[in-house]
């Protein structure tokens, strides 16, 4: 399976991430949970630094969040360095769809010496050191350099799937299974197991990284959000790309966002192990792979509501 899709062409799409819910009920139940997951992800970034999982993180925060977090960072001997000011989307922890275009500050957070080293690496575009400082698995850093930097792609999904074990229905469709810890397809909805872009759906380094982050979450009262993360990432999900527009179809919603422009549709179908009670009934994947609900829309071992 070739790493890069064929039939690529030049097309620059505007920035957008839009969501359509499968039903009002699905939205009522899951939208607050998605917000909780996104908020927890922000805290988990710096908490993982504080816990020694990695030297630095990149956190995108609103000015209000900065006021909340700066004293806490200081109390943990952490400092921050402003890298950029960006418009926030759902993947950054703020719902641009309902709040307009809020502005966020992209910060490097870590201990002073580490932040300095990270800043030097960013200025030098030294991806290897950046990946090392962010705790990313070396194989994923190499993957990022190959695909994003040298391959000039803005979406790593297809190369990631092409490098993973799975069924090839045809040259443009991959069906695969993966542990939730390496399922990155919900990232446009703000739910991700790791902050890095995994090189494969079975990347061992990513699995370890995700488990370490989950441990930090549970040690810091973020267990509920982590349970929702695991639940969401265990559902079936489909990513497809055509003409520079990606559509991510999940049991509860679909999301559209820019991707690399291709003249044929590329599809990745990641099988699920559970399905939410609020999930839609529909034709074709991910709907037909519905498995028996586990009750209350959550895995059986989730204890907190």
């Amino acid at each position: 399976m070739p790493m890069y899709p064929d039939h690529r062409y030049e097309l620059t799409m505007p920035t957008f991430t839009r969501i359509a819910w499968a039903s009002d009920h699905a939205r009522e139940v899951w939208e607050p949970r998605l917000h909780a997951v996104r908020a927890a992800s922000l805290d988990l970034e710096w908490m993982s630094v504080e816990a020694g999982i990695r030297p630095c993180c990149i956190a995108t925060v609103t000015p209000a969040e900065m006021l909340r977090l700066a004293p806490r960072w200081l109390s943990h001997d952490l400092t921050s360095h402003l890298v950029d000011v960006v418009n926030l989307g759902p993947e950054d922890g703020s719902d641009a769809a309902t709040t307009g275009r809020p502005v966020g500050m992209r910060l490097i957070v870590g201990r002073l010496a580490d932040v300095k080293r990270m800043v030097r690496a960013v200025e030098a575009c030294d991806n290897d050191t950046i990946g090392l400082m962010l705790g990313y698995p070396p194989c994923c850093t190499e993957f990022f350099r190959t695909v994003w930097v040298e391959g000039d792609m803005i979406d790593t999904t297809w190369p990631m799937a092409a490098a993973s074990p799975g069924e090839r229905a045809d040259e443009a469709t991959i069906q695969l299974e993966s542990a939730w810890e390496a399922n990155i397809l919900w990232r446009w909805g703000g739910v991700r197991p790791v902050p890095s872009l995994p090189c494969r759906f079975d990347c061992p380094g990513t699995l370890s990284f995700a488990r370490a982050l989950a441990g930090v979450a549970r040690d810091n009262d973020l267990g509920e959000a982590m349970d929702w993360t695991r639940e969401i990432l265990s559902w079936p999900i489909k990513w497809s790309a055509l003409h520079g527009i990606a559509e991510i179809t999940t049991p509860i919603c679909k999301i559209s966002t820019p991707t690399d422009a291709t003249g044929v549709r590329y599809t990745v179908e990641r099988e699920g192990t559970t399905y939410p009670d609020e999930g839609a009934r529909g034709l074709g994947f991910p709907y037909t792979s519905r498995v028996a609900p586990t009750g209350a829309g959550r895995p059986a071992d989730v204890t907190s509501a």
Partner: protein
Amino acid sequence: MGIEVRPLGVKCNIQCRYCYQEPQRDAGNARMMYDLPKLKKAVEEAGRAFTLFGGEPLLAPIPVLRELLEIGLRKYGRTDMQTNGTLIKDAHIDLFREFNVAVGVSVDGPDELNDVRWAGSLAKTREATAKTHAAIKRLCEEGFNPTVIITLHRGNATAEHLPRMHEWLRELDAMGVKSARLHILEVEDDDEARGYALTDDENIAAFMGFAALEKELKNLSLDVFNDMRNLLAGDDTKATCIWKACDSYTTRAVRGIEGNGQSSNCGRTNKDGVDYVKSPQEGFERYVSLYHTPFEYGGCKDCRFFLMCKGQCPGTAIDGDWRNRTRDCRVWFTMYETLEQEALAEGQTPLSLDPVRKQVEDRMLAAWLSGSNPDYYQAVLDARAAAAAQHHE
């Protein structure tokens, strides 16, 4: 925006073999229940006149219809309804009169030409067709002058059927039917209905024939041709949604209100059978993308009719994927070419051949990139005025 109120979702008393709502039924999403208080609240808050829609809206009991129509009259002065006409009885006619209802009837032709609108057996189908035609006649006699929606397929619009169809349209014209909308049969490649679809050449021949017929009709207009002529003239202000850069996540032209009060989109894009809730944010990425995507990939790059057509309805897109242009591209391209020639013959400069076209395209692209979707009418006026001023300098 048109408001489509669907008291019983897509539930219907007949089973048209090509129905675009079939994926919802196949997926088990045909709601059979309604919640009248929630439905009435949603209709009260709709803010504008609505269309009772289905499925078949007349499956709803008379008292329910009365309550909804009462809101329509009180708040908006009228209500529209789209029905297959088979269930219209005296009580319905009384309701239509009492509550100022404008009726649209979905029907594909007389007798056997309507057989694809299947009712379970051939005898029941013909019986249903007879009821539909009796209803149209009755509505005309009662002064309602209904509109009709006709889907073109192998059962009514091949060369052998067209003379009969033309005769029938003349009858409708004489009866007082005001307007007919012609639809190309919407099918997917793996769809059972594929067998009913006309070829592009057959569709073109049918449309050409209807365009010629329209000139001899007195009351009845075929709205698709009016739309296309106006669009070529640079006026898109009254064009129907299929030409107006519809966003499949929000379907600006159609807002559905389901039996439980839930807000939904136009069902034509529900290829996976899921009746998605309207997205909170409009977007027109499809049109930015189609403008730049080569034709051989399913895009519209360099098409001189792009401004008018915009890849047409996303519900008719190639492979059922809204990111593609319409699968009926060749039909519409040929029709635009024909009407373009017609305009030239009348001494007009159609927008497709107007030197200002590129400027208008750039303005529309800029609008879509910023997330808005204005009419192009003003942009055409501005560009033509600027060109005229430059010419006089």
